[in-house]
C-alpha cells in the first residue's frame, strides 16, 4: 500500500470469517469491513489525526528528548461501529449478538 498516506489514517481491511476459521458457526455476515489504523504520529501532529491532549504532550516530550525512551503516540481506532453477528451456539441454536467496536470508523493518535 505504497500510495497510502504516511500519517496516521484508516486503512481498508475486509475480514472474511472463513479466513480465521469461524465460518463453521457464523451464519451471517460471511465477511465485513473491519478497517484498521496505521501510520505515523510524528511531531508536530496535524489536526487530522485528532490527537488527544495526552498524545500532544507525549509527542512534545518525545521531541524535546529530555526523558529518554518515550515513543511516539500510537495510531489507534477512535470511533468504532458495532456489528450484528448471527451464529450457532454450542447447542446449534441460532443466536444474534450485536458486538460493539467491531469496525473502525476513524483513527486518532493516542
Amino acid at each position: 500500500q505504497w500510495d497510502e498516506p504516511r500519517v496516521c489514517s484508516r486503512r481498508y481491511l475486509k475480514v472474511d470469517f472463513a479466513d480465521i476459521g469461524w465460518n463453521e458457526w457464523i451464519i451471517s455476515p460471511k465477511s465485513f469491513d473491519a478497517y484498521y489504523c496505521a501510520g505515523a504520529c510524528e511531531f508536530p501532529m496535524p489536526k487530522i489525526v485528532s490527537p488527544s491532549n495526552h498524545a500532544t504532550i507525549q509527542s512534545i516530550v518525545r521531541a524535546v528528548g529530555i526523558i529518554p525512551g518515550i515513543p511516539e503516540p500510537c495510531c489507534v481506532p477512535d470511533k468504532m461501529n458495532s456489528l450484528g453477528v448471527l451464529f450457532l451456539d454450542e447447542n446449534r441454536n441460532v443466536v444474534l449478538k450485536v458486538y460493539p467496536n467491531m469496525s473502525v470508523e476513524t483513527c486518532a493518535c493516542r
Partner: protein
Amino acid sequence: SHTSPPQSTGPLATDGLARGKDPQKSLGDKAAALGPGAQDMVAVHMLRLYEKYSRRGARPGGGNTVRSFRPRLEVVNQKALYLFNLTSMQDSEMILTATFHFYSEPRWPWAHEVPCKQQAKNVSCRLLPLGLPARQHLLFRSLSQNTATQGLFRGNMALVPPPRALWQTKDISPIVKAARQDGELLLSAQLDSGGKDPGVPRLSPHAPYILIYANDLAISEPNSVAVTLQRYDPFQAGDREPGAAPNSSTDPRVRRATQATGPLQDNELPGLDERPAQIPRTQHYHKHELWPSPFRTLKPRPGRKDRRKKSQDVFVASSQVLHFDEKTMQKARRK
C-alpha cells in the same frame, strides 16, 4: 416492539415478516441460507431479526442479544411435550423479554364445518354448540438438569384456537426469569387440548420455539467476541481428541496471552533499556542507532555557512555511493 410483544400475533406480525408478495417463498429462501436441517421458522425469524438489527445503532429489544431455542420433542401419554434447554444462556445476559412462538391449528367447529354443511339435516350436527371453540392450555414446567422429576409448574396460559392456522406469540418473560432464578434451565411446554391428540406427535417445521431477548453485560468487556465466537485454541489444534466437541473445554474463553514479561510490558523496543540485567539478548542495540536523538533535531540551527559545509559533506558521502554504483554499472555493462 419486542419489549412488550403482542399476545396473539406471530413473528409474521411482530417483525414484519409478512412483507412482500410471497412471504412464504422469501422466507424459504432466507432459511435456505442456514443450510439443511435449519430451514424452519425459528431460523427464518432469526434471519429477519438479524437483518433488522444489523442496521447501525439498532438494538434488539433494547439489548444486544437474541437467543433462539429449538425444542426436543418428548411424547408423554401420547401428548407432545416440548423440552427447551436454556442452559446456553450466559450469566452475564440479563433477560429483557422471552417469547414463546407456536403454530396454532384451527380446531372444531371450523374443522367440522364442511361435513356439517353437507349433512345440514343431521340432528347431531345441528346440535353442535356453534361458536364455542375448544379451549387449549399451554402448560409450562421447569426442572434442573440433574433432577428426574416432572418439574416445577411455572404457568398455564389459556388459548383460543384461531379460525385459521397461524403462528402465535406468548410473552413468557416471567416464566423464564423465574426458572432461571431458581437455576432450572430446562423448560417444558405442553399444549393441552383436553382430549387425546390424534396420532403420535412428530417434530415438524411448525415446532414451537423460544426467543430470549437479553442484554449481555459482558459484551463490552475486552475480547468479548472471542468468548462466544472463538471456539478452538489455535495452539492446541492437534492435541484435541477425535470426536471431542470443539468447545468441550470447561472454560469457554481461550487464553491466548503470551508470556509477556520485562520490556514487552512497556512501550519500549526490546534492547532499548540500558540496564543490562533486563536484556537477555546477545545483541545490544545502542539507543542512538534506533531512536534519532531529539537533541539533534532540536538543537539550534547552524549558520548558513555551516549548513553549506554540511550539505557538501552529505554530498561527498552520497556521491561516494553514487560513484560506487556507477562503477558497478560500468563493470556490469562491460561484462
